């Protein structure tokens, strides 16, 4: 017993050479805990989720020249249409395989090597046609921005604000980012927080009464 004690004091002497050094272990432990709490733990809480099919806004908006309103528009009562359903995508996609047709006409040329991007589009289109257009099923799209159901959000009121102020997807997005879902709450990491809504409202002189956003 005695011996053990001696050994311990001995070790401590190493640190005791300078006065602040004896706080060093505490300090390191503190930093490690902070690092864990701030950098590692929040990511442990998130699971990554992929969109069910590769849908590219760039292909449809920039390359095909479709305006946003083809797919995201306001209904007569001012409510927002949200994400288009399979039926409305099918007005273009039913019976016509754009990418497959393009590949077929191009592959006739000699020495044709299918570009990686085209291969990817072909796979996505085939998968999309088989799984959804032909069966008429809805695509279970993931929305990066869904709010808890006690929040009321109106796209009509924010019509004058560009979409990517709040969204991480816009007309130039080619690859949909993964959705980082909080394991505990089930909400996406990109869901706008109340403080962000409120700070813009305050800036723009908008009301921040609770019943503006809550139901």
């Amino acid at each position: 017993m005695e011996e053990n004690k001696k050994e311990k004091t001995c070790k401590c002497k190493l640190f005791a050479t300078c006065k602040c050094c004896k706080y060093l272990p505490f300090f390191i432990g503190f930093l490690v805990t902070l690092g864990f709490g701030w950098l590692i733990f929040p990511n442990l809480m998130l699971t990554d989720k992929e969109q069910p099919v590769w849908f590219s806004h760039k292909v449809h908006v920039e390359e095909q020249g479709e305006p946003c309103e083809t797919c995201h528009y306001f209904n007569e009562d001012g409510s927002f249409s949200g994400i288009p359903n399979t039926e409305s995508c099918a007005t273009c996609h039913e019976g016509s395989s754009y990418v497959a047709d393009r590949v077929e006409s191009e592959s006739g040329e000699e020495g044709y090597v299918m570009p990686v991007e085209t291969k990817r589009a072909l796979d996505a289109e085939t998968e999309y046609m088989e799984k959804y257009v032909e069966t008429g099923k809805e695509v279970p799209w993931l929305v990066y921005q869904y709010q808890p159901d006690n929040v009321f959000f109106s796209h009509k009121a924010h019509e004058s604000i560009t979409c990517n102020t709040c969204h991480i997807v816009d007309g130039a997005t080619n690859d949909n980012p993964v959705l980082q879902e909080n394991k505990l709450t089930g909400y996406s990491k990109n869901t706008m927080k109340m403080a962000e809504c409120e700070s813009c409202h305050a800036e723009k002189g908008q009301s921040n009464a609770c019943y503006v956003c809550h139901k």
Partner: protein
Amino acid sequence: MAAVKDFKVKWGMIIDVDKCTGCGSCMIACQTENNIAPMSEDDASNKVRALSWMLVYELNNEKTYPEYEHAYLARPCMQCGVPACVPVCPVVATEKNEEGGIVSQIPPRCIGCRYCMAACPYHSRYFNWHDPIFPVGMDKTLSPNAALRPRGVVEKCSFCHTRYLKAKDRARQEGIDPMNFPQEYYQTACTQNCPSGAIVFGDLNNPEHSVYEMKKSPNAFRLLEKLGLDPQVYYYTEREWVRKLGDNYLKDEK
């Protein structure tokens, strides 16, 4: 006492006590619109624990036949101009600060202390003694207009407030001022479902809405007006004894 806030738009209701048949449609409409669970795990007839944002009371003139008369009085939240419930809330879960004058209730902020219930002279506030449990199948018919409230928080009538927000969107879509749209754009569920048309709903400050003139009738009154809470719900009756009851006069009072 807190100062009365002035609102450009002030939503209000006039309930015609003489037209009310006591059928209870307003109560049912309210419960479906606002996702109030049928309380199947407890005795649903337990008046202390049941939730009914809109409640119909039976009144009578305490006389015997042939003078006997009765009346039904439907009671939503009065959305008082000077609410008694707001200043007592320790966590600012209830406020009266939104244009339209509807007293807000934010259940996730509520800590369930129930001071507001004690303060409200109209018994318009209810405490969730249970988690909302819906019978299988019924959970698929829930309304998107109201979020479910868990056990342990207080809730109350909101004048079907989400309908107001949606009406403003409709007005914006049609290019109408969202602060001044026609009455029929925003009607509460109880108003729409009253078979005898006893409830009229609209903006008390807007001359184009029917409540504007109706509230000026000498037969219009408010409940417990003498408390000075300035409710936004009016009642209408041609019977004096009902009006007297409305202000809770003592029998020997003049």
